[in-house]
């Protein structure tokens, strides 16, 4: 008798559970958890899915004591990276154990590293090693180059350097893009974004070379986020400065490294001649990509007599950084 009652209660409970579950899923208001309700068909429409990045991006808490810009000069890339990042608080400030870190180099063109059109692979490798030493559980390297991705990653030496330093390399495939929403952006409020490397990422670091640029005059760490977008990017030329200001809004990095080991001071962004490249021997690390870029403009491209390109002002208007780097705390260090 007891067994019978138990069996009945069990069965009744199961049946009720199924009924309630089905009712919840189909009838609960659509903003309730686990609800599948779609009264007007809007929810089920394809293409509405889009991504948003975390609210404050991947930035860590600001500090009122530490220098804004860490500048290191020298030859040994490991020391350079360590000193520049050390000046703004050290890698421990930015990367905690078990972080998944995405590093975004500039691999835009199929050029040898010496030609200065891409991030110096040695700097990238040193940065990967530094991030790994802080206990990151995974380091990823990703870019969506202008030219064929496989050739760009191979020719620039980025693929080999990244893999040997222990990072995973992501090259774009058509299915890797999804629409990203950037509220407040002028042009790219909704735009295809290279999202696959971002899945599960907790920190994002940009590392970009210092380059002259035919359109926007200078391509550094802010312009570097261009390589995370897909779609028809040539449309951007109509308002390149507006786009770069949008890029600064779109991605708030953990920190950026401006790679001034080589400076492509003219014929950018493609370059080609070693005569267009000078050795800079400098790295700049900052949580503020605009400040780092402004430093690069005046000290590495040595254009301190010229006005900053328009995208600096447009980004600063949005409160995305400080373009007058001389007002900031700068710590410079000479290494071996």
């Amino acid at each position, binding site marked *: 008798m007891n067994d019978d009652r138990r069996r009945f209660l069990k069965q009744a409970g199961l049946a009720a559970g199924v009924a309630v579950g089905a009712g919840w899923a189909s009838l609960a208001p659509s903003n309730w958890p686990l609800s599948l309700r779609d009264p007007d068909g809007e929810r089920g429409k394809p293409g509405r899915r889009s991504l948003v990045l975390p609210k404050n991006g991947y930035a860590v808490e600001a500090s009122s004591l530490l220098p804004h810009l860490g500048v290191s000069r020298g030859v040994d890339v490991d020391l350079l990276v360590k000193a520049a990042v050390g000046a703004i608080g050290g890698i421990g400030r930015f990367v905690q154990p078990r972080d998944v870190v995405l590093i975004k180099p500039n691999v835009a063109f199929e050029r040898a590293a010496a030609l200065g059109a891409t991030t110096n692979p040695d700097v990238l490798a040193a940065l990967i090693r530094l991030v790994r030493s802080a206990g990151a559980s995974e380091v990823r390297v990703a870019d969506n180059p202008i030219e064929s991705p496989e050739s760009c990653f191979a020719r620039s030496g980025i693929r080999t350097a990244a893999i040997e330093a222990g990072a995973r390399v992501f*090259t774009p*495939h058509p299915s890797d893009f999804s629409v990203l929403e950037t509220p407040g952006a002028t042009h790219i409020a909704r735009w295809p974004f290279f999202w696959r490397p971002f899945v599960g990422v907790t920190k994002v670091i940009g590392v970009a070379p210092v380059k002259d640029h035919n359109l926007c005059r200078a391509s550094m760490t802010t312009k570097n986020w261009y390589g995370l977008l897909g779609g028809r990017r040539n449309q951007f030329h109509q308002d390149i400065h507006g786009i770069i200001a949008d890029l600064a809004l779109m991605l708030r990095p953990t920190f950026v490294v401006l790679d001034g080991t080589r400076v492509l001071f003219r014929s950018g962004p493609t370059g080609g001649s070693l005569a267009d490249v000078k050795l800079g021997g400098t790295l700049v690390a900052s949580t503020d990509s605009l400040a780092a870029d402004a430093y690069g403009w005046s000290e590495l491209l040595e254009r301190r007599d010229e006005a900053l390109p328009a995208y600096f002002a447009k980004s600063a208007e949005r409160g995305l950084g400080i373009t007058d780097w001389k007002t900031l705390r700068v710590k410079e260090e000479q290494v071996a």
Partner: protein
Amino acid sequence: MTTPGPIAAERGKDGRLHLRVLSGLTPDLKPNKDGSPWYARTFRITSIRIATQAFFFALFVFLLWVTWLSRLGGYPASLFLEMDPLVGFATALSTHTVYRWLWRGMFILIPTLLLGRVFCNWVCPYGTLHQFIGWVFNIRSNKNLIDKNRYKPLFQLKYVILTIMLVMAFFGSLQIGLLDPICLLVRTFTVAVAPAFDISLAQTFPSLAFKPGLQEPRIFAEAWFVGALIIGLVGANLVIPRFFCRVLCPLGAFLGWFSRFALFRIDRDVTKCTDCDLCLKGCEGAADPQAALRKSECFVCFNCIDDCPEGALSFKLTPAPIKDRIVGSIKAGTATLFGQKVISKLHDTEIRSPDLPRRRWLFSAIAGVLAFPFLRLSRAVNKRGFNEKAIRPPGSVAEAEFLERCIKCDQCVNVCPTNVLQPATLAESGLEGLWTPVMDFSVGFCQLNCTLCSEVCPTGAIQKISLAEKLGLEKFKERGPIRVGTAFFDQGRCLPWAMQTPCVVCEEVCPVTPKAIGTYDETITRWDGVQVTLNKPYMRPELCIGCGICERECPVVDSAAVYVTAIGETRSDDRTLLLKGPKRA
């Protein structure tokens, strides 16, 4: 120990569940009871067999994996197809020749003549797949298994299939590839498994992809059917163990017929056998080791020897017939053999030939004789009614000879870098040409400098050609390049011809020199008054090789305004387009 299988759970003495697979993994390094060292235990012949099967399966997948332009190198990519003695024998029947590497069938035939159907349970990757699936998903009790592994008359069917196919091959229609396990598995990997892997797991591990570096995944005509077929055939193991191998496999039937000559076979010692039937528990071939061994069915898997609790079974060199040497009566319990008491019931010791009665052989042969004209009279493959979309890869022999050679293995489809080669559907080639390679220029185009399909074809349906031969260079200058068809314009869909819209894509991409596509340049005043220059394209049929890049690149993508059909192909004298031989500039 009631439920065999890899992950059966048992309740231990402590009352908790133990997974047998885990307890089985604990190393037990004590010597065996008979004093032999522990590793003799793990070195059982069945362990060696499993290692061999794993090796050949891995080798099979590896060779398909390297069948790609960046990996091919000198790998014998079609090795398994070439070693398949049925491929060699059937093409020899249909063409009276043994092409290129097909002599490698001896690698399998000779061991079969010595040892029986060892191929089926030691080498064949398809057999390995069936055995593995049957093992993983086995839910049967030992008693049930013993029952399932008894020989059944249904297993005669494979001999019927083989006979029909060989008779058809004799008349010139090679159909073994429909069911030959190697052809079937290569085709399944090419058309279904590899592309499915590439769009799923290979996204995470791009370097493992079968076809690396592609922007778009490869697509194949009727991939669903090929995929459904393997799911069905593999799933049949759950109903009848080794269903395909025992019931359908024409290669198994072929080797079964030859294994009558085998010098070695499983031998049962009737003085030890207690008729417990445990040898049937793992019998892969359903070869009745507990009674008169059916040599043509035995896969030489050695499970019976492993399972015999009495040590009554062994693998022996031509055991002598024993029936005549028994003295006394088994019924009365007085029978002895060489002085030892015979305790088992006595059957014939072996059944050599396949169990197919003579009248059924005859019926199969007649069915084959009839099937040939039934297939060949179909319009798609008949000389008088060829399909214009049956465009064969460069180097292919003429259609009648092609059907004598092509085993539908789709290795050419596998290696094709542009995805233009597709397995034919019933529409292009009828049942006779099902899954033979045809080019679909809406998917890809024939890469000018590529001859890879001719390299991997095991049977010479696509003859091995050099690049010079394909392009008509050097000593082939006189004959000209190989044409696979001719392109035509559909002026009603062509942008400059029909829509006052400039476009010269087809002319630009045409790879031959001089170009096979020319243009009439004409400046017109468009409907809205704007002056536009239209380059209206036309074809120069003497120059077109049918590579199809114009069709592939035509901006009218759904049904291209320029399209290739098979007319004008070099391989056929019946399908010439121009009266005079093609001129070379």
